[in-house]
């Protein structure tokens, strides 16, 4: 156990270092329009992701459950999903490339933050041994990754709108940034909603109730409704541009409160094991 823990800690720090190098190279490459350095940053990020995968797999085998029980596991796997989703979506939508400027630092910050939590082994309660739990948590992680991408486009939009010069000139046109933010918000909304539904199926199977107005459940529903309002506003009220970006950033903040704030601050079934 001790050697596994040491290996896990060392592996995680190694990943943090590689992600930091990726971030530095990426930001330098983008800011100074140096494609060679930018390409190197992707190699760093890819290697970091591979190493990160190994570290998560090692810990999974050691503790006997997926990375969703202890805070360090949750944050580490969130960082992994953001990085993995970025690369997956990059294949599908090459124009999201500049999102790396937010995705890379978000990943290393989350992983570094995870290192400050006690990496002790958490027991997986019997109720958690359900495939629906994995689906529920997995979908929320993907939702977070897509919302990070959407948020990056919203921020890019606001920056470019304010002053279109320097590295911002390399970003796509304003309307393209706006539509990408909209589309990834739609993906995020769908993953979030399906994640919530999967959670209620699991709750029904385990506890005989599919909804209990638990604080985390309530906040997840508030987030879902706020993204619903955002999509409604965009579709039917022609909300776009600056106001849409700010509205989305507000929704994104609410989603962070649901995912992390409620899990650490409030006494709910969802926070019991996260604390």
């Amino acid at each position, binding site marked *: 156990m001790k050697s596994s823990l040491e290996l896990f800690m060392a592996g995680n720090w190694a990943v943090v270092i590689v992600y930091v190098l990726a971030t530095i190279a990426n930001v330098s490459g983008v800011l100074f329009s140096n494609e060679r350095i930018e390409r190197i940053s992707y190699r760093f990020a890819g290697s970091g992701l591979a190493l990160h995968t190994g570290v998560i797999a090692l810990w999974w085998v050691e503790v*006997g459950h997926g990375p969703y029980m202890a805070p360090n596991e949750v944050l580490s796997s969130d960082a992994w999903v953001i990085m993995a989703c970025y690369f997956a979506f990059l294949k599908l*939508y090459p124009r999201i490339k500049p999102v790396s400027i937010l995705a890379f630092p978000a990943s290393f910050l989350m992983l570094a933050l995870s290192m400050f939590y006690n990496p002790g082994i958490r*027991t*997986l*309660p*019997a*109720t958690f*041994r*359900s495939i629906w739990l994995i689906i529920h948590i997995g979908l929320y992680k993907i939702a977070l990754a897509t919302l990070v991408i959407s948020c990056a486009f919203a921020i890019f939009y606001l920056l470019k709108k304010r002053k279109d010069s320097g590295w911002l000139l390399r970003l796509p046109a304003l*309307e*393209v940034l706006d*539509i*990408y933010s*909209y*589309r990834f918000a*739609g*993906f995020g*909304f*769908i993953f979030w*909603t*399906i994640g919530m*539904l999967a959670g*209620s*199926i699991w709750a*029904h*199977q*385990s*506890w*005989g*109730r*599919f*909804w*209990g*107005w*638990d*604080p985390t459940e*309530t*906040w997840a*529903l*508030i987030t879902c*409704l*706020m993204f*619903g*309002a955002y999509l*409604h*506003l965009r579709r*039917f*009220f022609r909300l776009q541009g600056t106001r849409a970006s700010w509205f989305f950033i507000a929704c994104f903040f609410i989603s962070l409160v649901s995912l992390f704030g409620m899990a650490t601050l*409030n006494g709910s079934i969802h926070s019991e094991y996260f604390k």
Partner: protein
Amino acid sequence: MNIFRKLITARRLSLGLILFLAGMMYVSTLVPQEMGSSPEGIAEWRHKHEALLWLVDGFKLYRMYVQPWFAAAILLALAALVITTFDQIAAARRKLYSTGCGVEDPVVEASSEQALRSVARSRWYLSLHTGSQDKLKFVRNPWGYFGNTLLHLGMVLVVSASLYVAVTGRQGVLIMIEGETRGTPLHWDLSEYGILASPLVLPGTVRLDKVRVNFDGKNRPAAVSSDVTITDGSGSAESFSASINKIIRYRGLRVYHAAQYGDAFSLEFSDGEGRRHLEKIPVQQSTGLDNAGYGDFDLTWSPHVLSTKYYADADRKKMTGGKPQLVVRLLDKSRELARASLTPGNSGILGNYRVRLLGVEKWAKLIFVDIGGMAVIFAGFGIIMIGGVVQYTVPPRELIAIRQQDGRYLVYWRAAAFKEFYMDERDSITRELQKEAAS
């Protein structure tokens, strides 16, 4: 009727309802709700927020989810969703059969119908009937028109079935110790039922025969099951085994094994004046040799709280059949007054009391549920998922061709949503048709 329809489907009302419900849910996280908070917590909150009590009590914000005005908002949202669903079906059909080109400019000219069909087919555009020989319409992902319809339909099913479950569902909870029998009429430890339902009644007695906890190689509970026997009024007994995540069905009821289970400790308290108090306290299962199970209990004969923790084995050797170690503390709020460590058969001093651990048995919590409508809720979930995926991942793209007098076709391209994502597709179609025309 039309005015009502217009009012209820107004976009501003839909948006207003979404924001109102989100806002009220936010309020429900600020004002402690009766069903999820302890009486002490509620009292403390009320003491700290006296200035807000007129508002909280006036609207009964402490029981928000069962208030008529909250139900009215949900019903209004449901009515809007139902009508909008029909509107969405009509809109989807309209889009499916529309051959208008809107404000789009023609992207290219096609030399022949055959060339156009060939290019459309190669890009997975399906030919749709237009009712006119001079117009051709090809659509990629025509089912995408129905994404919104499915999203709305799914929500209608989920909301209406949830309301049905809320008003007709009922359940009872039993916290039982091995060997215990609950008779008729059955006294639940906790019972809940909707406003159109009566309290749940079991047709007989319930006995908890055995609780089994299996541990994995690292001494963590891996599987929990309880053997239960229910004997009905005619004396017919039926035994079954309920496990966590394995639901048992008994005469239309669903029986769940809750995540609460563990060891129940029989304690005898005696004071200097010869008074004896017997307590049986169920403490949550410990989850490893070095991990304790915890539980706090109010004592009817003492103003203090009995706080407990136990280890499965005082020697930390094995999880089952060992010698459990129970640590009891008397607390005055959070201040510890006294503490004693006990093993079976032994006693210790706890403040003014001598406390003896008489024995240890297993306990478990079972939930009996009687609800209908879950199948509709899950069907709604499925439809929402399909609708969402269709709406956001496969927006329809249209090719509309209008025949000119010279027999050539003027071709228009349009995406139902996220046009900027599919410009490459449009450009590739344009290039191919241009190549066809040139050859």
